[in-house]
Protein backbone atom coordinates (compact mmCIF):
# COMPACT_ATOMS: atom_id res chain seq x y z
CA UNK A 1 0.00 0.00 0.00
CA UNK A 2 2.90 2.35 0.73
CA UNK A 3 4.01 1.73 -2.84
CA UNK A 4 0.89 3.46 -4.04
CA UNK A 5 1.57 6.71 -2.19
CA UNK A 6 3.97 8.01 -4.79
CA UNK A 7 1.77 7.35 -7.85
CA UNK A 8 -1.20 8.71 -5.99
CA UNK A 9 0.64 11.89 -5.12
CA UNK A 10 1.84 12.10 -8.70
CA UNK A 11 -1.71 11.78 -9.98
CA UNK A 12 -2.96 14.49 -7.64
CA UNK A 13 -0.13 16.81 -8.58
CA UNK A 14 -0.62 16.15 -12.30
CA UNK A 15 -4.30 16.92 -12.13
CA UNK A 16 -3.59 20.06 -10.13
CA UNK A 17 -0.89 21.23 -12.52
CA UNK A 18 -2.88 20.65 -15.68
CA UNK A 19 -6.07 22.07 -14.24
CA UNK A 20 -4.45 25.13 -12.75
CA UNK A 21 -2.36 25.69 -15.89
CA UNK A 22 -5.44 25.54 -18.04
CA UNK A 23 -7.10 27.86 -15.55
CA UNK A 24 -4.33 30.43 -16.01
CA UNK A 25 -5.06 30.51 -19.72
CA UNK A 26 -8.83 30.34 -19.52
CA UNK A 27 -9.74 32.32 -16.40
CA UNK A 28 -11.48 35.54 -17.23
CA UNK A 29 -10.13 37.43 -14.25
CA UNK A 30 -6.51 38.24 -14.27
CA UNK A 31 -6.04 37.96 -10.50
CA UNK A 32 -7.46 34.46 -10.69
CA UNK A 33 -4.92 33.68 -13.36
CA UNK A 34 -2.15 34.96 -11.15
CA UNK A 35 -3.21 32.92 -8.14
CA UNK A 36 -3.67 29.80 -10.23
CA UNK A 37 -0.22 30.36 -11.61
CA UNK A 38 1.17 30.47 -8.07
CA UNK A 39 -0.73 27.27 -7.38
CA UNK A 40 0.82 25.62 -10.43
CA UNK A 41 4.24 26.63 -9.21
CA UNK A 42 3.56 25.09 -5.81
CA UNK A 43 2.47 21.84 -7.39
CA UNK A 44 5.56 21.76 -9.56
CA UNK A 45 7.57 22.18 -6.40
CA UNK A 46 5.68 19.14 -5.16
CA UNK A 47 6.78 17.28 -8.28
CA UNK A 48 10.35 18.22 -7.50
CA UNK A 49 10.01 16.80 -4.03
CA UNK A 50 8.62 13.66 -5.59
CA UNK A 51 11.69 13.50 -7.78
CA UNK A 52 13.88 13.88 -4.71
CA UNK A 53 15.06 17.36 -5.57
CA UNK A 54 13.97 19.17 -2.45
CA UNK A 55 16.52 21.98 -2.70
CA UNK A 56 15.30 22.92 -6.14
CA UNK A 57 11.78 22.66 -4.81
CA UNK A 58 12.57 25.13 -2.06
CA UNK A 59 14.12 27.56 -4.49
CA UNK A 60 11.15 27.08 -6.77
CA UNK A 61 8.78 28.20 -4.03
CA UNK A 62 11.09 30.95 -2.83
CA UNK A 63 11.54 32.49 -6.25
CA UNK A 64 8.38 31.75 -8.14
CA UNK A 65 5.81 32.01 -5.39
CA UNK A 66 7.60 34.46 -3.14
CA UNK A 67 8.97 36.79 -5.77
CA UNK A 68 7.69 36.34 -9.29
CA UNK A 69 4.04 35.92 -8.40
CA UNK A 70 4.17 38.97 -6.18
CA UNK A 71 5.86 40.89 -8.99
CA UNK A 72 3.13 39.84 -11.40
CA UNK A 73 0.48 40.80 -8.89
CA UNK A 74 2.11 44.22 -8.75
CA UNK A 75 1.93 44.34 -12.54
CA UNK A 76 -1.73 43.41 -12.42
CA UNK A 77 -2.50 46.09 -9.87
CA UNK A 78 -0.67 48.80 -11.73
CA UNK A 79 -2.49 48.13 -15.00
CA UNK A 80 -6.17 48.19 -14.14
CA UNK A 81 -8.56 47.67 -17.01
CA UNK A 82 -12.25 47.98 -17.28
CA UNK A 83 -14.06 44.64 -17.81
CA UNK A 84 -14.45 43.70 -21.43
CA UNK A 85 -16.88 41.44 -23.32
CA UNK A 86 -15.88 37.81 -23.55
CA UNK A 87 -15.69 38.07 -27.33
CA UNK A 88 -12.63 40.28 -27.01
CA UNK A 89 -11.06 37.93 -24.53
CA UNK A 90 -9.02 35.79 -26.91
CA UNK A 91 -7.04 36.87 -29.88
CA UNK A 92 -8.49 36.48 -33.35
CA UNK A 93 -5.99 33.78 -34.14
CA UNK A 94 -7.31 31.40 -31.49
CA UNK A 95 -8.49 28.75 -33.98
CA UNK A 96 -5.19 28.75 -35.82
CA UNK A 97 -3.43 28.51 -32.49
CA UNK A 98 -5.52 25.56 -31.37
CA UNK A 99 -4.99 23.87 -34.72
CA UNK A 100 -1.24 24.14 -34.35
CA UNK A 101 -0.73 23.63 -30.64
CA UNK A 102 -2.94 20.61 -29.98
CA UNK A 103 -1.24 18.28 -32.49
CA UNK A 104 2.20 19.35 -31.38
CA UNK A 105 1.28 18.81 -27.74
CA UNK A 106 0.00 15.35 -28.51
CA UNK A 107 3.08 14.44 -30.53
CA UNK A 108 5.51 15.71 -27.91
CA UNK A 109 3.63 14.09 -25.02
CA UNK A 110 3.75 10.79 -26.88
CA UNK A 111 7.44 11.17 -27.60
CA UNK A 112 7.95 11.96 -23.92
CA UNK A 113 6.88 8.48 -22.91
CA UNK A 114 9.68 7.03 -24.93
CA UNK A 115 12.21 8.17 -22.30
CA UNK A 116 13.12 5.43 -19.88
CA UNK A 117 14.72 5.76 -16.47
CA UNK A 118 18.37 4.91 -16.59
CA UNK A 119 18.94 1.54 -15.03
CA UNK A 120 21.84 2.51 -12.80
CA UNK A 121 20.07 5.31 -11.01
CA UNK A 122 18.89 3.84 -7.82
CA UNK A 123 17.93 5.72 -4.70
CA UNK A 124 19.93 8.89 -4.91
CA UNK A 125 20.48 11.07 -1.91
CA UNK A 126 19.31 14.65 -1.61
CA UNK A 127 20.29 17.10 -4.29
CA UNK A 128 21.74 19.72 -1.96
CA UNK A 129 25.38 18.71 -2.30
CA UNK A 130 25.38 17.92 -6.04
CA UNK A 131 23.61 21.17 -6.76
CA UNK A 132 26.00 23.19 -4.64
CA UNK A 133 29.01 21.49 -6.17
CA UNK A 134 27.78 22.10 -9.68
CA UNK A 135 26.86 25.72 -9.13
CA UNK A 136 29.90 26.82 -7.20
CA UNK A 137 32.55 24.63 -8.77
CA UNK A 138 31.77 23.41 -12.30
CA UNK A 139 29.48 26.23 -13.31
CA UNK A 140 30.92 29.02 -11.22
CA UNK A 141 31.65 31.29 -14.16
CA UNK A 142 28.24 30.89 -15.85
CA UNK A 143 26.73 31.49 -12.45
CA UNK A 144 28.56 34.80 -12.17
CA UNK A 145 27.49 35.68 -15.70
CA UNK A 146 23.90 34.92 -14.74
CA UNK A 147 24.18 37.25 -11.79
CA UNK A 148 25.42 39.99 -14.10
CA UNK A 149 22.42 39.29 -16.31
CA UNK A 150 20.16 39.71 -13.33
CA UNK A 151 21.81 42.99 -12.42
CA UNK A 152 21.43 44.22 -15.97
CA UNK A 153 17.77 43.22 -15.97
CA UNK A 154 17.23 45.06 -12.71
CA UNK A 155 18.86 48.22 -13.98
CA UNK A 156 16.92 47.92 -17.23
CA UNK A 157 13.63 47.48 -15.44
CA UNK A 158 14.27 50.50 -13.22
CA UNK A 159 15.22 52.65 -16.17
CA UNK A 160 12.17 51.57 -18.12
CA UNK A 161 9.70 52.27 -15.34
CA UNK A 162 11.28 55.37 -13.86
CA UNK A 163 9.38 58.53 -14.65
CA UNK A 164 11.38 61.28 -16.24
CA UNK A 165 10.96 64.02 -13.71
CA UNK A 166 11.09 62.47 -10.27
Amino acid at each position, binding site marked *: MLDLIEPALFAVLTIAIVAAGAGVVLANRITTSALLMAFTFLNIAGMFVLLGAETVAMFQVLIYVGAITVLILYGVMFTPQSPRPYGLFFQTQKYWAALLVVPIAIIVALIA*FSFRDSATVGAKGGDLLPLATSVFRDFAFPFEVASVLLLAAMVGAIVLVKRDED
Partner: protein
Amino acid sequence: MAVPLGAFIAVSAVLFFIGTAGVLVRRNAVVILMSVELMLNATNLALVAFSRRYSSIDERGSVFVVFIFVVAAAEVAVGLAIVLSAYRNKPTVDVDEIRQLKG
Protein backbone atom coordinates in the same frame (compact mmCIF):
# COMPACT_ATOMS: atom_id res chain seq x y z
CA MET B 1 6.45 1.66 -7.28
CA ALA B 2 8.18 4.63 -8.74
CA VAL B 3 6.56 6.87 -11.26
CA PRO B 4 8.33 6.41 -14.64
CA LEU B 5 10.36 9.23 -16.07
CA GLY B 6 8.16 9.42 -19.16
CA ALA B 7 5.20 10.48 -17.05
CA PHE B 8 7.06 13.47 -15.65
CA ILE B 9 8.20 14.49 -19.10
CA ALA B 10 4.70 14.14 -20.44
CA VAL B 11 3.30 16.39 -17.70
CA SER B 12 6.03 18.85 -18.47
CA ALA B 13 5.16 18.76 -22.17
CA VAL B 14 1.46 19.27 -21.50
CA LEU B 15 2.16 22.22 -19.23
CA PHE B 16 4.55 23.67 -21.76
CA PHE B 17 1.94 23.64 -24.48
CA ILE B 18 -0.71 25.00 -22.17
CA GLY B 19 1.66 27.90 -21.69
CA THR B 20 2.22 28.15 -25.42
CA ALA B 21 -1.50 28.24 -26.00
CA GLY B 22 -1.76 31.01 -23.41
CA VAL B 23 0.85 33.07 -25.20
CA LEU B 24 -0.91 32.53 -28.50
CA VAL B 25 -4.52 33.17 -27.59
CA ARG B 26 -4.60 35.69 -24.76
CA ARG B 27 -4.67 39.41 -25.42
CA ASN B 28 -3.63 40.61 -21.99
CA ALA B 29 0.13 41.18 -21.86
CA VAL B 30 0.36 40.28 -18.17
CA VAL B 31 -1.34 36.96 -18.78
CA ILE B 32 1.07 36.35 -21.62
CA LEU B 33 3.92 36.89 -19.17
CA MET B 34 2.30 34.40 -16.82
CA SER B 35 2.03 31.89 -19.65
CA VAL B 36 5.70 32.34 -20.40
CA GLU B 37 6.40 31.60 -16.75
CA LEU B 38 4.37 28.43 -17.07
CA MET B 39 6.47 27.39 -20.05
CA LEU B 40 9.67 28.05 -18.12
CA ASN B 41 8.35 25.99 -15.24
CA ALA B 42 7.52 23.13 -17.55
CA THR B 43 11.11 23.27 -18.72
CA ASN B 44 12.28 23.21 -15.11
CA LEU B 45 10.25 20.12 -14.48
CA ALA B 46 11.71 18.34 -17.49
CA LEU B 47 15.24 19.35 -16.52
CA VAL B 48 14.89 18.18 -12.95
CA ALA B 49 13.28 14.93 -14.05
CA PHE B 50 16.06 14.20 -16.52
CA SER B 51 18.70 15.22 -14.03
CA ARG B 52 17.34 12.97 -11.30
CA ARG B 53 16.31 9.99 -13.36
CA TYR B 54 18.00 9.96 -16.72
CA SER B 55 21.60 10.87 -16.24
CA SER B 56 23.68 8.11 -14.78
CA ILE B 57 26.70 10.32 -14.18
CA ASP B 58 25.85 13.38 -12.17
CA GLU B 59 23.09 15.86 -11.54
CA ARG B 60 24.19 18.82 -13.50
CA GLY B 61 20.73 19.21 -15.01
CA SER B 62 19.59 20.93 -11.85
CA VAL B 63 22.11 23.71 -12.43
CA PHE B 64 20.21 24.74 -15.51
CA VAL B 65 17.13 25.05 -13.37
CA VAL B 66 19.00 27.58 -11.30
CA PHE B 67 19.90 29.48 -14.45
CA ILE B 68 16.28 29.34 -15.56
CA PHE B 69 15.30 30.88 -12.23
CA VAL B 70 17.63 33.74 -13.03
CA VAL B 71 16.33 34.10 -16.55
CA ALA B 72 12.74 33.93 -15.37
CA ALA B 73 13.29 36.62 -12.78
CA ALA B 74 15.03 38.85 -15.31
CA GLU B 75 12.35 38.17 -17.89
CA VAL B 76 9.47 38.97 -15.62
CA ALA B 77 11.12 42.13 -14.29
CA VAL B 78 11.93 43.54 -17.69
CA GLY B 79 8.68 42.27 -19.19
CA LEU B 80 6.58 43.94 -16.53
CA ALA B 81 8.61 47.12 -16.87
CA ILE B 82 7.88 47.17 -20.59
CA VAL B 83 4.20 46.48 -20.01
CA LEU B 84 4.04 49.25 -17.44
CA SER B 85 5.73 51.82 -19.64
CA ALA B 86 3.49 50.82 -22.55
CA TYR B 87 0.51 51.18 -20.25
CA ARG B 88 1.63 54.70 -19.38
CA ASN B 89 1.60 55.76 -23.00
CA LYS B 90 -1.76 54.23 -23.74
CA PRO B 91 -3.80 52.79 -20.89
CA THR B 92 -4.09 49.28 -22.23
CA VAL B 93 -2.30 46.00 -21.76
CA ASP B 94 -3.93 44.48 -24.82
CA VAL B 95 -1.21 43.27 -27.14
CA ASP B 96 -3.44 43.65 -30.18
CA GLU B 97 -3.69 47.35 -29.53
CA ILE B 98 0.01 47.86 -28.91
CA ARG B 99 1.10 47.56 -32.50
CA GLN B 100 2.71 50.87 -33.36
CA LEU B 101 5.91 49.07 -34.33
CA LYS B 102 4.33 47.24 -37.26
CA GLY B 103 6.14 47.49 -40.56
